[in-house]
């Protein structure tokens, strides 16, 4: 995609050449958007706030997956299992060791990252769907571990209750309060992900994705960068898992499951692989779609009264799967690519090219 800028907009310094946001009005727009998000609890209903909260946490997980799959090209079906790891670590640190949430979350991120490194190790020898299988193994082994290991601490399949995070005496116990936590973390992770993608690390990731052998010949240490990608993806998953666990206030081995991992991959494709807008678009669209399926359910049952009450549950995978397949056939580069096309068309208006 050629860089299309409005006429008369020139870079006069290296700083402005590197800038992500170039114009003053763009800064104002961004600020207005962020303020609107933070003010959400004042004008939106609780269910909307809860939905935004969930979308925010999902975006963080998908951003991690984007670094691993979108930029480095390593397909992973284990993202939800790293969320499980992060959620458990954070919950145990807060419950059993009495850590404050704000120390436990980074620790959980780090812990999940180390687990991710462990399951990224096969990436030295295998790639393609052999590697997918290795990440699938993580999706089975980590939940199994939480069910069976240390039953006194992890409480088996029952799972453990998680405490509400407290900061300066404020309890984040309702969606309206929790959203501040989610949004703040989300903004930080977005900035970090964006800057990783345009630094030396991100360029190395892209080289590995485009052709790993060629990248190795150029002097990129494949193993190192693949492991770093796994580590980063799991760190993001750990953050998301910790946030989600403290919001739901309970975690067990099934809180984040294989279907979630598949969903994250689907969101990434629908949003756009290898683009920083991709996870955001994808998570929003898919979560809305699932929400839509829930709303659509009663209507569906009234149309076809013979279907069982499980119809609503059936609509979710159906909608998601159909959307994923349609995107793969008709727009494999995702919504982020559409957005680029739209922006280019807007700037070239009234000409078509």
């Amino acid at each position, binding site marked *: 995609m050629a860089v299309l800028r409005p006429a008369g907009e020139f870079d006069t310094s290296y700083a402005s050449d590197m800038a992500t946001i170039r114009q003053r009005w763009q800064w104002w727009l961004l600020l207005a958007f962020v303020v609107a998000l933070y003010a959400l609890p004042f004008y939106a209903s609780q269910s909307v706030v809860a939905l935004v909260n969930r979308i925010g946490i999902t975006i963080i997980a998908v951003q991690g997956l984007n670094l691993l799959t979108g930029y480095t090209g390593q397909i992973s079906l284990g993202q939800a299992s790293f969320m499980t790891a992060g959620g458990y670590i954070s919950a145990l640190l807060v419950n059993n060791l009495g850590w404050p949430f704000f120390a436990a979350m980074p620790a959980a991120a780090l812990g999940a990252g180390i687990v991710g490194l462990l399951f990224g190790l096969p990436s030295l020898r295998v790639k393609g769907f052999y590697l997918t*299988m290795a990440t*699938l193994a993580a999706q089975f082994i980590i939940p199994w571990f939480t069910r069976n290991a240390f039953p006194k601490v992890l409480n088996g399949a029952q799972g453990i209750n998680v405490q509400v995070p407290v900061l300066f005496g404020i309890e984040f116990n309702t969606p309206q309060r929790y959203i501040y936590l989610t949004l703040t973390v989300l903004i930080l992770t977005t900035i970090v992900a964006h800057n990783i993608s345009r630094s030396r690390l991100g360029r190395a990731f892209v080289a590995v994705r485009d052709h790993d052998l060629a990248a190795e010949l150029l002097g990129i240490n494949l193993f190192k960068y693949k492991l770093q990608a796994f580590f980063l993806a799991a760190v993001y998953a750990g953050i998301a898992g910790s946030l989600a666990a403290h919001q739901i206030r309970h975690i067990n081995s099934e809180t984040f499951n294989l279907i979630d991992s598949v969903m994250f991959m689907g969101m990434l494709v629908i949003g756009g692989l290898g683009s920083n807008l991709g996870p955001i678009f994808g998570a929003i669209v898919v979560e809305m779609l699932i929400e839509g399926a829930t709303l659509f359910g009663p209507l569906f049952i009234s149309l076809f009264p013979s279907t069982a009450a499980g119809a609503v549950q059936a609509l979710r995978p159906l909608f998601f799967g159909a959307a994923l397949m349609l995107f793969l056939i008709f727009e494999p580069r995702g919504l982020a690519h559409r957005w680029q096309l739209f922006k280019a068309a807007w700037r070239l208006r009234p000409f078509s090219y």
Partner: protein
Amino acid sequence: MNWQLLPQFAMTGLLAGGPLALTALGLVLIFKSSYIFNFAQGQLLLLGALITWWFAVELNLPLWLAIVFALVISALMGLLIERLALRPMTGQPLLSIILMTLGLSQVLQGLALLVFGGTQRNFPQIFSAANPYKITMPFVYNDNNIVIILKQNLVWSFVVAVLGVVIISLFFRFTRTGLAMRGTSEDHELAQSIGIRIHRIFGFSWALAGVVATLGGVLLATSSGLDLSLSVVVLAAFPVVLLGGLESIPGTIVGGLIIGLSQGLVSVSKVPIVRNMSEIMPYVVLLIVLIFRPEGLFGQKRIERI
């Protein structure tokens, strides 16, 4: 270790490897001809079993007729899937194809739930549950001869599964279509240049995979009941495929037996945590295979060039 249970569990584990091998066979069939790893195989299995159930119980047809109908329908379903979902993906990167089959699996799972509902069903018994086979082992433990008790359906499922794999192997070796499929798996362009219609081959292999999936689904449903969780079985079949080698049909049998046996063996242990490992044993084996012999036991080693 509970030594007196060892022969029993080893035998049961081995036999359980049969249906696993049949499930894995469906995956290998598609992979061999078109390099697609089908994550939706479990849902094909589930739908095959559900359709059989519908014909046999709802329409009161004799079971053999129901199975024949289900086999025809699942073959058509395989053709349809290949035409609508996978053909547009020709030449797309691996990631897109993997995600396509994952999306397909979600759609099929949703369809199964929508049409058939999520209730547990009684699948007609094919093999009688009474009168299990008893084998007296020739060795003695605590002054008693060890007796292995094997359910009839377990034994016959195993026999059917092995027969299926053998028939498919012979098909690949001696028939024109089978040879064309092997040729296609070697090189798509080359196969096309000597007059093989590769799209027809792809369609045929999907149809065949649908048939194999239905057989596997019926065998599993008749021994363990039928509900939507049947599709999860295929998750234990992925490691079987990788262990046996992605291109190898006999590999599915060997892989299935090894995975089944490993699950049986850990179940013998007296330590609860080791005993509980039987559910993740396929994946533990998988990780070991990936690290030490990524191409599997009988797979082809690939050399890459730039």
